[in-house]
């Protein structure tokens, strides 16, 4: 991440130079769209080749992917419903990335957020729905926030690598969820699929009027815009980016790096926790193992593809939400295994990372005069 920061500094230095041609001024910005776009196209081409080896027509694949993701009003709704948690789990990776940290434990924070939100709703049975919903949001965000703050704290105060600790915490969160759902919190009526009791239909957050897309999408959009403003338009965000670029410089100018890390990690985790709350309050209605659907892991890919920019996360989350929404159609029409979406995501991830090598190397974008 440090190289990235160095690059943007470099780009900022280039822009106000004499005779600012169009490419000179916008070349760097165009790169940020062109290179990930090219990586995406390359990944789709490789995936098409893979599918051709599997004996299916790649053109059919592309058609059904488009159709299943963005072809009809129904598929758009499906896509947007999936994009909502992806935006939030991507923020769980993108916010700590500003500090140069690689957090990949969004899935764990999502599960803990879901558990906390469900517990809050079950404790407040009988209260007015709006009270229950607000309590769920707060509980989910605090639960998820503390979970990732734990990783941040371990990194800052014990020197434990945050990538590994956050991933270990995913497995621990899953064990805690399974334990509670099959033990103390189990609804005796849930026989085949151990679950908690339902939070109640009145407490569900429902859909945006006129659509089948739940309010979670709005939560996600608000969080992404708020994160963007926080990072790029507040002193706090500036301090975070300084610390991410050069931790020694940050300490020399007197920034409290520990406080920055803890706050950013808490905010990141609370985003993923909110995603868990949404999955409970808008989709599942209760907590069970269905919640571990991999949104946390896809969120990592979204964050990297969006180059850790909170605003760019929104379109990328919609794109990847679309890819996962088309998974069902690929299974039914082409007979592909359900894991094909995972394969495509993996290929995209590899291409996006490899494309990092291209920045600043595309001749015609340098705008040489």
């Amino acid at each position, binding site marked *: 991440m440090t190289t990235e920061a160095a690059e943007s500094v470099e780009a900022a230095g280039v822009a106000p130079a004499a005779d600012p041609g169009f490419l000179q001024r916008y070349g760097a910005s165009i790169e940020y769209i062109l290179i990930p776009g090219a990586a995406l196209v390359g990944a789709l081409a490789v995936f098409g080749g893979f599918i051709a080896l599997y004996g299916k027509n790649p053109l059919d694949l592309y058609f059904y992917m488009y159709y299943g993701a963005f072809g009809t009003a129904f598929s758009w709704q499906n896509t947007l419903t999936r994009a909502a948690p992806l935006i939030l789990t991507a923020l769980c990776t993108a916010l700590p990335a500003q500090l140069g940290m690689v957090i990949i434990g969004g899935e764990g924070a999502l599960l803990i957020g879901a558990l906390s939100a469900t517990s809050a709703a079950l404790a407040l049975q009988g209260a007015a729905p709006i009270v229950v919903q607000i309590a769920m949001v707060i509980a989910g965000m605090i639960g998820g926030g503390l979970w990732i703050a734990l990783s941040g704290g371990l990194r800052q105060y*014990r020197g434990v690598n945050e990538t*590994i600790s956050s991933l270990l915490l*995913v*497995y621990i969160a899953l064990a805690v969820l399974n334990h509670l759902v099959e033990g103390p919190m189990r609804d005796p009526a849930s026989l085949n699929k151990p679950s908690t009791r339902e939070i109640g239909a009145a407490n569900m957050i429902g859909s945006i009027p006129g659509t089948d897309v739940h309010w979670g999408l709005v939560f996600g959009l608000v969080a992404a815009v708020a994160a963007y403003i926080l990072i790029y338009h507040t002193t706090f965000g500036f301090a975070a980016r300084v610390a991410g670029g050069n931790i020694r410089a940050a300490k020399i100018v007197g920034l409290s790096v520990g406080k920055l890390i803890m706050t950013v990690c808490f905010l990141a985790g609370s985003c993923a926790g909110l995603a868990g709350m949404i999955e409970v309050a808008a989709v599942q209605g209760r907590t069970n193992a269905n919640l571990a659907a991999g949104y946390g892991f896809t969120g990592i890919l979204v964050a990297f593809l969006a180059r850790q920019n909170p605003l760019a996360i929104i379109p990328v989350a919609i794109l990847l939400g679309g890819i996962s929404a088309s998974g069902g159609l690929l299974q039914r029409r082409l007979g592909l295994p359900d894991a094909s979406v995972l*394969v495509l995501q993996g290929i995209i*991830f*590899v291409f996006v990372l490899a494309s990092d*090598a291209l920045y600043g190397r595309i001749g015609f974008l340098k705008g040489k005069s």
Partner: protein
Amino acid sequence: MADASLGLWTVPLAVFGGAIRVSTPFLFVSLGECITERSGRINLGLEGTLVMGAMSAYGISYLSGSPWLGVLAAGITGALFGALHAGICSLPRVNDIAVGIALMLLGTGLAFFLGKPLIEPTAARLPAIDFGWWSDVPQLRAALRINVLFLIGVAIAPLLYWAFKTTRWGLLIRTAGESADAARAMGHSVLLIRLRATMVGGFLAGIGGSFLSLFYPGSWNEGLSSGQGITAVALVIFARWDPMLCLWASLAFGGAAALGPALQSVGITSGYHLFNAAPYILTLAIMIITCSPKRTLTGAPAELSITR
């Protein structure tokens, strides 16, 4: 039944047997990762390599009827994944941790995709050597049915320790890991050394995966590996990049991971899932105890991004 006479001794016995059985994948992945990290690169993708290894071993064993061909296939698959990791990491400005995460997702996805038709059929398993023939106690005999792969892994650890210490290529790997400039000044290609180290690491991790599908638990399904790969990567860190410590740590981990099933076998089922999380909690606890924010870890290769 001997069950009654053994009483609570069943638990430590099952943990002991489990330590040997469950530790093998940990052992192979951690030794592989040890080689990779000593060369100055971290490969977090070994979780994906492990699952790919398990799938390809099961598939080849099913198709060919020979489990040892399966083990070889798993190793080759792992080496290819290692080559992919090293290849992408040799590009300028590419972060090895991020590439590892990507390969973790790609490996699991690819294994689930290609392994879909393998969930039903039964493949030939690896044989076990019966070290418990002298005993009448069935639990002890079960605990002492030891797989050859475990013995190979146990043999590799001191071999690797010796190789790092005394051989030419051991020195080259350590040089690349401690100071890329020094290796370059000696006229060696750091990228090539790391490519080889990552491929050998992937080879071992793939073999670790073959143990999962061909011996214990001994079948292929999508829930086969749940974090053993990443736990083993963490294990290398507190084993201080020492192959012998990797061996002891793997055994400790195998024991911790066997605790849940062992307690379940004597009827303690209430905290089953929590006991299953024991290896992860143990990893985290040991990392908390052994890491420090003030100094870099002793024994850490200086070029390793994870310790900087």
